[in-house]
């Protein structure tokens, strides 16, 4: 038996709803309406923020009694938006109230809804904590609700960079999105707030992964792989990672100097000269001594241990240059803002 809540007899259609709302708050209260992806959003003028919410709560035609949530969204240069979500248990309608917070990015201020909905209290505290948006009339925005009390900065703003992404690129298997079908790395322009684009270290890792995949896909074609290796060796391409004969000293890939801050247009040839580093490990010996092993393992040298992770000092030779931890510029790549 499915219990349905008693729904209002005539649940208003969107047009009727907007008409009724306009009757109560006036035409100027809303600057627009969006109804995409099954989400009805009212774009409210900042001056009528509280009024619209009050009307939606108190008028029986609407009856939005469940306060769902309130949060901020970074709106790039225009400042911030605050979205409040209200739901009516009697009509089953949900509405999003969206407002452009006046004050831009420097001093965003909005009236508080705490007087109407008690649930807005913590929601607004969290929005202030994350974005720095002040709420007039709030009983007490401080202390910070989620972050540490002495935290500096507003974390969810797009100009607050996620430190882990700045310090090092995404380690591990290359994301498919960064490579096209052939396995070549795709450059893209990174906008404000985007995940950083591929760095040179990323490209090196991508090429290595591609080589391994190629080797796995065609294990029997040693001759073709050998010829490719010869070509590769002949051109002295910096990303020469494929090794097809078990050499006593496999050449690890060279260490390009990746910029930890992805620039919008990374230079196509910042790659330094490949510096073959003799690896002290006796790894190739087992490869040579175990002919029963699949040829794949013999064809591609493993990714050098430690590259891309913290203990890069283990390796000799040129290492990617990372900004020191206390470098104030480390959080702000150029050309982002």
């Amino acid at each position, binding site marked *: 038996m499915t*219990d349905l809540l008693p729904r209002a007899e005539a649940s208003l259609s969107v047009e009727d709803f907007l008409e009724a709302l306009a009757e109560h708050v006036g035409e100027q209260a809303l600057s627009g309406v969006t109804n995409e992806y*099954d989400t009805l959003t009212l774009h409210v003028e900042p001056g009528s923020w509280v009024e619209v919410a009050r009307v939606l709560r108190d008028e029986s035609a609407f009856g939005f009694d469940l306060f769902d*949530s309130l949060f901020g*969204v970074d709106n790039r240069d225009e400042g911030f938006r605050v*979205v409040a*979500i209200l739901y009516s248990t009697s009509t089953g309608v949900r509405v999003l109230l969206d407002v452009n917070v006046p004050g831009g990015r420097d001093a965003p201020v909005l009236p508080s809804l705490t007087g109407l909905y008690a649930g807005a209290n913590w929601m607004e505290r969290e929005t202030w904590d994350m974005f720095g948006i002040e709420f007039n009339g709030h009983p007490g925005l401080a202390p910070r609700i989620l972050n540490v009390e002495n935290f500096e900065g507003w*974390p969810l703003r797009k100009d607050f960079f*996620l430190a882990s992404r700045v310090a090092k690129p995404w380690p591990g298997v290359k994301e*498919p*999105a960064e490579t096209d079908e052939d396995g070549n790395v795709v450059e893209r322009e990174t906008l404000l707030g985007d995940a950083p684009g591929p760095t040179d270290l990323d490209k090196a890792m991508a090429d290595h992964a591609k080589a391994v995949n190629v080797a796995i896909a065609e294990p029997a074609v040693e001759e073709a792989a050998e010829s490719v290796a010869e070509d590769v060796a002949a051109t002295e391409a910096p990303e020469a990672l494929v090794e097809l004969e078990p050499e006593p000293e496999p050449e690890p890939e060279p260490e390009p100097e990746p910029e930890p801050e992805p620039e919008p247009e990374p230079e196509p040839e910042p790659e330094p000269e490949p510096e073959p580093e003799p690896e002290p490990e006796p790894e190739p010996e087992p490869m040579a001594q175990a002919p029963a092993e699949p040829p794949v393992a013999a064809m591609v040298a493993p990714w050098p241990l430690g590259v891309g992770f913290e203990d890069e000092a283990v390796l000799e030779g040129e290492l990617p240059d990372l900004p020191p931890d206390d470098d104030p510029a480390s959080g702000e790549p150029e050309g982002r803002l």
Partner: protein
Amino acid sequence: MSDLETRERIHPGTAPGEDIALEIIGDGDFDTAEMTLSIGPAHPATHGVLRIIMEMDGERIRDAHPVIGYMHRGFEKLAEHRDYRQIKALVNRHDWLSGFANELGVALAVEKMLEMEVPERAVWIRMLLAEWNRILNHLMFIGSYAIELGAITPMFYAFREREDIQYLLESATGGRLHFTYNQVGGIKVDLPKGFLQQSTDIAATIRKRLQDYKDLILGNEIFQARTVGVGALEREVALAYGVTGPTLHATGVAEDSRVTEPYLKYGEIDVTVPVGEHGDCYDRFYCLVHRIQASLDIIDQVHDAMPSGPVNQKLPKVVKAPEGWTYLRIENPLGQLGYYLESDGTKTPWRLKMRTPSFSNVAVIPHLLRGTLVPDAIAVLGSVFFVVGDVDR
């Protein structure tokens, strides 16, 4: 304080032996001191790191201020740097007792924006696992609530049941707690052979054992004495705070996303929503136990209706959500979990807001705790079901 000192304090200058006229200080009442007690962050009664600063007068609480944020991990910020393939492993973890429901929500949000048709079989499998996850979650709270009140045995029974279910889910998804089974457009792989049979068996076992819980806990006089009438939440207050889930159902409002805004195939089957009357601790627990029963009924219906077919679909190399935003709400075991997904056309979200049920449920705790005794406070805290990771994200 010695006699002499007391005398000095009240009547400075009188020597011992002199008569003193007693002067009452204060307004004649006992001068009791108010005490500030901090429950948490590490305390057996709070589920995880939640701190509640209570101003107390003896054993009565005058005011309570929850301090949250001890488990804040910055999920919303991290989500902005994850593409839609990686994001499910992240959102699994804010409510770790309902990992499947979390992933499901984000997958459904992305699918809504992409207007993607999910294969039938995948939908039914999602429902099946979501309901099993719900039972898993509720069993945990049954055990933990009973142990907070002093009954040490139900915890073991509940975890015995949980082990069975986790074994079942592990056979399909590979995980006991974090499943990472949903994908945009379906689920990862199909169920293993024998899964449905085992699922039916376990459902039958749990249904039988559920009667034990009802008799031994709900029917226990001491349990009833501890929970009936304690921590009553009024309907309007609950709605104003945005409380959802069993906590809201106990106040009499049958607001359940599976029923009011059916997602997946909940519209095609019967879903029972148990509601309470008074909104006190007993009703919340009652709703919890009966939700398990309702989930078992749903599982039986899903078993009967499970179609065959593919379970996922070929995705483009890069899953990019179109520009715009959407808000999707599903019924997490703890309440209504909402995901606001705003995308600017790239492969990572521009903003992913997780509207977690526990955040709103914990927000109502000061209102509930004012004026109660400490043991009642423990009973109330345990009955407002929340997971701290959900509160803090």
